[in-house]
C-alpha cells in the first residue's frame, strides 16, 4: 500500500515532473482549443519531442497534453461554435447559444468545473477497476486478444466515419502499414520491396503526424479566410449553488463517460453525445430549452468526455487495447519508452501504473486552475489568424517527424501519409482506424499466429475454441453484431419493430 501511495505521489513531489504536467496541461488546453487543432494532432506532434527523454518526464508531459486537450476542445465549441475535438460536439449545442446571450464566461466556468468532476470520477474508477480487470485479463487466450483487436478497430471504424466499409478499409490499411518490415518471428521481409531502409518498418510517428497533423493542416487551407468571432467574457467561476444544483447530473454523466470510455473503440465523443441525450431525457423542465443554451446540455457532455479519459485508460493499461485514436497514440508512445501496456504491466511494473494515475490526477487539478484563469490571453490565442497558424503547425509537424530518428526519410513518409490522409478525409474515410490498425497490428498478428498454431493450423478447431469459451463467444458475437447492424437487414428489423 505504501508503494502505491509513494508512486502515486511522485509527480506531486518532484518539481520537474510537476512542472511538466502543468506545462503539458497548459499546452493541451490552448492547442486543443484552437480551431483546426484537435487533441489528436496536439498529442501526436508534441509527443514526438519527448522520445529522447527519460520515461517519467515524457509520461508527465504526455498525460498533461492529453487531459488538457480533451478539455480544451470545449472552449472553441462555446466561443466560436467550432468544436476543438469530436468530444466537444455536444458542448457546442448549448454552449454557443449561451455565449451568444453574453454568458460565455459562465459557460466556460461550468464546463471547467464539471470537466474536473468528470475527470476525477474517471480516475477513481481507473484506480479501483484496473487491477481487477488486469488480473482477469491474464487469463485471456490469444484468440481473445485477436478478437478484441478486431473489435476495437471495427468499433472505431463504424462509429467515427460515414461508412463501415470505409472504416474497415482504413483499419485494414493500418494493419498493413503496421506489418511493414522484417517479421519478428521468421525474419521474412514484408512489403519492403528490397529496400533496407524499410526493413525496420515505417516510423509510427511519421504515420501519425502525417495523418493527423499535415492532413488536418491541408484541410484547414480550404477555409483560411474564415473571419474570427469575438465574444465578451464575463464572470467565470460558477457559484457554489450552481455546482450543487448540477452535481447529481454530473455524477450520472460521469458514470456514462467511464463506461463508454472503457469500451474498446468508443471514446469521449460518443460518451458526450450519450450523456447529452441522457440529460435531455432526465431534465423535465430546464430553465432554458435544450439547444438554446441549457446549462444541463453543457454539464452532461463535458463531465462525460472527461470521465471517459479515465475510462479509456482501463483497456489501454490492462489489455493494451486503445479506446480511440488518442489513446492509440499514447500506447505507441509508451511502447517507444519501453513500457508494454497490457495485463503484465500491473504485475511487472505496477509502480508505472500508479505513477500514471498520479499524473492524471495532477493534470486534472491543473486543468481546473488553467481553465478558470487567463481567459483574456486565451481569447487572443484563439483569434490568431490561420494564415500564420497553419505554416507554424506544418513546421512543428516536420520538426516532430524529423526529431524522432533524425531522419529525412521520416519527413517524406510524413508528407506521403499527410497527402494520403488529406484525400481520405476529403472523400469521407475516417483516419482513427488507420492509427488503431498500426498500433494493433503486432498484437493481432502475434495472437493470430499463437492461436492458430495452438489449434494445429486448423480453422475448424479455432472456431470450436471460440464457440465453447464464453468470453471468446461474446467477443465474436460483438464483432458479428457490428457487421450485421450496418446491413440493410438490420435496418429492416428496426423498421419492423417501430
Amino acid at each position, binding site marked *: 500500500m505504501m508503494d502505491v501511495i509513494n508512486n502515486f505521489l511522485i509527480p506531486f513531489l518532484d518539481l520537474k515532473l510537476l512542472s511538466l504536467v502543468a506545462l503539458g496541461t497548459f499546452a493541451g488546453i490552448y492547442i486543443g482549443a484552437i480551431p483546426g487543432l484537435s487533441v489528436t494532432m496536439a498529442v501526436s506532434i508534441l509527443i514526438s519531442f519527448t522520445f529522447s527523454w527519460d520515461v517519467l518526464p515524457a509520461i508527465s508531459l504526455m498525460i498533461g497534453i492529453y487531459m488538457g486537450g480533451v478539455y480544451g476542445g470545449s472552449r472553441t465549441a462555446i466561443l466560436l461554435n467550432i468544436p476543438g475535438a469530436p468530444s466537444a460536439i455536444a458542448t457546442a449545442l448549448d454552449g454557443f447559444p449561451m455565449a451568444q446571450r453574453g454568458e460565455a464566461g459562465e459557460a466556460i466556468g461550468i464546463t471547467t468545473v464539471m470537466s474536473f468532476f468528470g475527470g476525477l470520477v474517471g480516475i477513481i474508477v481507473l484506480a479501483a477497476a484496473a487491477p481487477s480487470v488486469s488480473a482477469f485479463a491474464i487469463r485471456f487466450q490469444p484468440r481473445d486478444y485477436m478478437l478484441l483487436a478486431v473489435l476495437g478497430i471495427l468499433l472505431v471504424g463504424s462509429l467515427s466515419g460515414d461508412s463501415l466499409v470505409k472504416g474497415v478499409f482504413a483499419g485494414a490499411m493500418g494493419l*498493413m502499414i503496421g506489418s511493414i518490415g522484417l517479421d519478428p518471428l521468421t525474419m*521474412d521481409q514484408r512489403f519492403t520491396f528490397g529496400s533496407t531502409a524499410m526493413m525496420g518498418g515505417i516510423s509510427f510517428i511519421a504515420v501519425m503526424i502525417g495523418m493527423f497533423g499535415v492532413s488536418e493542416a491541408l484541410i484547414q*487551407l480550404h477555409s483560411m479566410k474564415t473571419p474570427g468571432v469575438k465574444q465578451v467574457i464575463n464572470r467565470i467561476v460558477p457559484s457554489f449553488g450552481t455546482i450543487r444544483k448540477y452535481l447529481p447530473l454530473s455524477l450520472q454523466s460521469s458514470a456514462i463517460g467511464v463506461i463508454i470510455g472503457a469500451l474498446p473503440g468508443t471514446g469521449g465523443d460518443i460518451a458526450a453525445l450519450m450523456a447529452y441525450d441522457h440529460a435531455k431525457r432526465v431534465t423535465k423542465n430546464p430553465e432554458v430549452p435544450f439547444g438554446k443554451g441549457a446549462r444541463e446540455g453543457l454539464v452532461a457532455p463535458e463531465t462525460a468526455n472527461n470521465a471517459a479519459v479515465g475510462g479509456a485508460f482501463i483497456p489501454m493499461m490492462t489489455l493494451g487495447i486503445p479506446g480511440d485514436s488518442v489513446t492509440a497514440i499514447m500506447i505507441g508512445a509508451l511502447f517507444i519508452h519501453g513500457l508494454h501496456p497490457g495485463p503484465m504491466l500491473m504485475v511487472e511494473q505496477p509502480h508505472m501504473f500508479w505513477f500514471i494515475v498520479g499524473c492524471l490526477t495532477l493534470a486534472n487539478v491543473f486543468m481546473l486552475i488553467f481553465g478558470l484563469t487567463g481567459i483574456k490571453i486565451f481569447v487572443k490565442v484563439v483569434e490568431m489568424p490561420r494564415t500564420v497558424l497553419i505554416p507554424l503547425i506544418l*513546421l512543428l509537424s516536420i*520538426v516532430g517527424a524529423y*526529431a524522432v530518428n533524425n531522419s529525412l526519410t521520416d519527413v517524406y513518409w510524413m508528407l506521403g501519409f499527410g497527402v494520403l490522409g488529406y484525400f481520405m478525409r476529403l472523400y469521407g474515410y475516417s483516419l482513427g482506424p488507420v492509427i488503431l490498425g498500426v498500433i494493433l497490428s503486432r498484437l493481432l498478428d502475434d495472437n*493470430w499466429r499463437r492461436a492458430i498454431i495452438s489449434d494445429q493450423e486448423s480453422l475448424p478447431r479455432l472456431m470450436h475454441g471460440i464457440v465453447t469459451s464464453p468470453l471468446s463467444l461474446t467477443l465474436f458475437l460483438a464483432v458479428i453484431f457490428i457487421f450485421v447492424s450496418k446491413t440493410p437487414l438490420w435496418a429492416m428489423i428496426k423498421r419492423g419493430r417501430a
Partner: protein
Amino acid sequence: MQSKTPRRPGELVFNLFVIAASLFLFYSAYGIAGFDALSSAGAIPMMTTALMALCGVLILRENLRKSPNTAEKIERDILPIPVIVTIIAITAYALLLKPLGFIPTSFLFLLGLMKLFSGRSWVFSVAAAAGSVALIYVIFRLIFTVLMPQGVVPESEILAAIGHLFGGAK
C-alpha cells in the same frame, strides 16, 4: 437508385487508385510466404490487403451509384493552389534541411507560406516568420534539446559564445 450524397470530383480516381494499390499490395503479400500456412509471416498481410481490395470494390460500387457533384470543382474544392504549394514547400523543406540547416530553412518556409497565405506586407511576414523560428528554436532546440541539422549557421559556436559571455561575467 442513386445515393443521396453526391460524388465529389476526383473521388472515382482516388477509389480506383485505392483498388489498384490494394491489389498490388496483395500480390506483394502473396510473395512473402504464399499459401504456406495459416501461421506464416504472410497470412495477416494477405488477409488485410485482400480486405482492403474488397472494401475498395464495395466503395466503388457505392460511388458508381452516386450522381456527380456538379457544384464542386477539382481546382477549387479538392486541390486548390494553396494545398499544392504547401506540398511543394514541405518537399523543398526536406530537400534543403541538411544543406542549409534548420534556422534558414524554417525561416524561408514560414516566410514563403505566411506571405502567400496572408497577403500582408513583407515587414509583417518577415517579423512573424523570424519570431516564430526564434520561439520554436528556444522551445524545441534549447529546452527540449531536439537535435536539428546545423547547416550554414554555426549554431554551436554562437551558443558557446553566448554561454561564454554569461559564464565570463561571473
